[in-house]
């Protein structure tokens, strides 16, 4: 039995009824392409969600005074009221291999007033050069340019500009509470308008150079609220944060080095949930496909009962018959896989590199866990999953062939040959 060319027989049998083979293979191939594509799309969404949550404004890791969250009080700067050597910290962080960028920030709440209206907002003091490396929201300004230090220059979001009916070049009044308890106010010039895509952000944030904000708030240069850090891959954020926590010089009061996974645990859970769903999807898809394949194989073996009868009459064992049928099942699986792969891979490459934009259908961006998702059908590659799908496909084909194989092995030789 071991020399019997099972695979070749199985393969050739496929050619005997090309339509049926084709249709059967089509069912499995569709299942394969579908699983690969749907999961690829879902992962694309996940990646975008994480990316958006972290690289738009926040960064993958945030470093604060341990008391800073959740109140975000003006006084809880890194190093407490004494502040700390911010440049030293930045040097250490920049030295880590996984770190792509790091930038200090200062935050305060206040009012922004144009001649016509007043908006409540959150002021953010940034180091423009470092900030551009870190986040994306300042990359493409809607209008104007980034503010220059020492000139009382300000940047606001698109929504806020609209609410204030203001444009680049206008003068704005800025009002806030200083660290010494006084009400601070000053006149600033709007030099640029940004659009992040997150309406809340665009309506609330006003951005200026960090030194200017510190001055306004009566904070010395060594007091900042946050150092935001970007890593090359969001997935290494946790490990990097742990490393940095060890590497950074001790600061009193204690600081925390927090990766995005801690800041947004719900998002982490959601990604894990989505991962679990993939197996359910694959299970359902192939669970349905198996009926079609089983049916097909039953028909095929029924048609060839005479052959099996001859084989058995000549002395082959039922096991040989099983092998013949199973090898045909395997051959169907292989053909389906080839068909599926030929369709799936170009499709995935296309949707990875040039995904169609769905905004026509949806009209708006979606936020999930506070992250902005743009409605494009971008897919992510996941080679281990593809192998899992391929395995599921072959297993389905074999399982489907199992019952027909057993039935074929039970063909009563004499009765069949005499035409019953």
């Amino acid at each position, binding site marked *: 039995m071991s020399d019997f060319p099972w695979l070749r027989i199985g393969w050739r049998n496929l050619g005997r009824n090309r*339509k049926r083979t084709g249709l059967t293979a089509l069912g499995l191939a569709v299942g394969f392409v579908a699983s690969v594509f749907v999961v690829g799309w879902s992962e694309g969404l996940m990646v975008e969600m994480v990316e958006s949550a972290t690289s738009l404004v926040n960064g993958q890791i945030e470093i604060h005074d341990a008391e800073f969250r959740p109140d975000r009080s003006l006084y809880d700067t890194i190093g407490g009221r004494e502040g700390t050597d911010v440049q030293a910290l930045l040097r250490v962080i920049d030295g880590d291999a996984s770190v792509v960028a790091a930038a200090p920030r200062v935050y305060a709440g206040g009012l922004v007033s144009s001649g016509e209206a007043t908006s409540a907002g959150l002021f953010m003091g940034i180091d423009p050069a470092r900030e551009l490396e870190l986040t994306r929201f300042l990359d493409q300004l809607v209008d104007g340019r980034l503010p220059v230090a020492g000139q009382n220059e300000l940047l606001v979001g698109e929504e806020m500009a609209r609410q204030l009916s203001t444009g680049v070049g206008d003068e704005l009044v800025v009002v806030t509470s200083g660290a010494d308890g006084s009400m601070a106010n000053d006149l600033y010039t709007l030099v640029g308008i940004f659009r992040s895509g997150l309406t809340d952000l665009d309506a609330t944030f006003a951005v200026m150079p960090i030194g200017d904000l510190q001055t306004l708030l009566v904070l010395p240069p060594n007091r900042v609220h946050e150092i935001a850090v970007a890593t090359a891959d969001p997935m290494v954020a946790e490990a990097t944060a742990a490393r940095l926590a060890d590497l950074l010089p001790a600061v009193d009061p204690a600081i925390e080095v927090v990766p995005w996974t801690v800041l947004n645990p719900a998002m982490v859970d959601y990604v894990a949930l989505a991962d679990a769903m993939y197996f359910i999807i694959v299970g359902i898809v192939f669970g349905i496909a198996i009926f079609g394949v089983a049916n097909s194989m039953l028909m095929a073996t029924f048609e060839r009962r005479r052959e099996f009868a001859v084989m058995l009459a000549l002395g082959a064992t039922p096991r040989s018959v099983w092998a013949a049928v199973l090898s045909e099942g395997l051959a169907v699986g292989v053909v389906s896989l080839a068909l599926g792969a030929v369709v799936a891979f170009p499709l995935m490459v296309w949707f990875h590199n040039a995904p169609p934009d769905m905004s026509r259908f949806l009209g708006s961006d*979606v936020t999930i866990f506070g992250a902005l998702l743009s409605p494009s059908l971008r897919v992510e590659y996941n080679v281990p999953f593809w192998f899992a799908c391929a395995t599921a496909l072959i297993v389905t084909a074999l399982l489907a062939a199992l019952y027909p194989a057993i039935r074929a092995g039970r063909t009563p030789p004499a009765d069949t040959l005499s035409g019953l």
Partner: protein
Amino acid sequence: MAKTLMTLRSQPMQVGVILMLALRNLRRQLRRSILTASAMIIGGWLLLFTFSLGDGTHETWIDSGVRMSGGHVTVERPEFRRSRKIEDRLSADVRSTIERALEAPEIAAQVVAQSARLTINALASSPAGARPAQIIAVDPLAEAPFSMFDDQVLEGRYLEPDDRLAAYVGIGLVESLDLRLGSRFVVQAQDTAQDISGQLLRVVGIFQSGMPEADQTVIHIPIQTAGDWLGSDRDVTNVGVVLADSATVASVATHLERVLAEPIAHGDASVLEWRESNPALYAAVAIDNFGNYLVYGILFTIIAVGIVNTVLMSVLHRHREFGVLQALGLTPGQTGAIVLVEGLTLTAISGVIGVSLGLLTTWYFFGDGIDFSALIGEDMTFSGVVIDPIIVPMFRVSRLSQILVFILVIGAAASIYPARRAATIDTAEAMKFER
């Protein structure tokens, strides 16, 4: 002279014969029919149940989402949406017109809650700092059934009708400003005279919605307080309603637009449906539905391929039989009809069984819903809505008909090619076959 064809009686439809042959053939190939039917039954079951769950989920999202914002339908001045300025509030006349319109019986029957509010942005400050805040000035009695915030009291209480300087504040804002129950703080905003005006408030209640956006910015105050502070009397910026069923939104909105035609024409009012005022939520629902359509489109393609396979194979195996039928006098069209009926019957029966199973499952979970908290957890937010982990599946007749029609179309489409094959056989050729 040869007789003409008129003497031949015209061809009857033979519906009875076609049905009989089709059904008997299905019966004869029971095993194949059952295998094909099984795939369709599971598909139909999953389809109905998943969409019921989906519709139920979306309804919950929408209900939560609209209660946290302006309602299923909101009426406000057209400019207000963008500007959020107090000048763009509704005039007293327009407001009473709106409130009268909402009393119309057809609308009132759908309305679960109705609230008129003044919504403005302000700066909230305390000795600990200053934060942007969203002030929502309300009539507590109307707002309570409308909003969800009043039920989410952490400490203290919600606003009461006699309150004057009371504020109901989100926990995030309370922590940022280092406040407590009973603390005083100041809010500042631009008043009707275009000056920046301040108002002292006292915290009477603290809430936690689970939504950072709300917890960190929302403050509810009595409408008179806002009026005194900003000089707007008892004016409001928007009037919103929560409806019993989101499917009625379009008709309610249309009705309102009719009644408010005049103010709308003058630019004093506009009627917004929730999908316009909350496009992110609408997009979320659309994406979720789209995901489902995609998955089921795929599943049913696989099922359809299975149907084509089965029906086609049975045609090819009955080549001879079809030849005999045509020799006996059945037309090609009638022969094709037998195959079409077989395919459709198989699909229809298995589809109905599957859908019925789906309905049963939906009904079973209808009362208490399914608790997904193990999977989703308590903290999920999606487009500004906290997702309740308990999902109650929802049955909609429109969805059911959609699904049944879809299944029948699949069955018909899958049977067309095999039916054509059956119809176009060469009768004489077929006689050479054994089967």
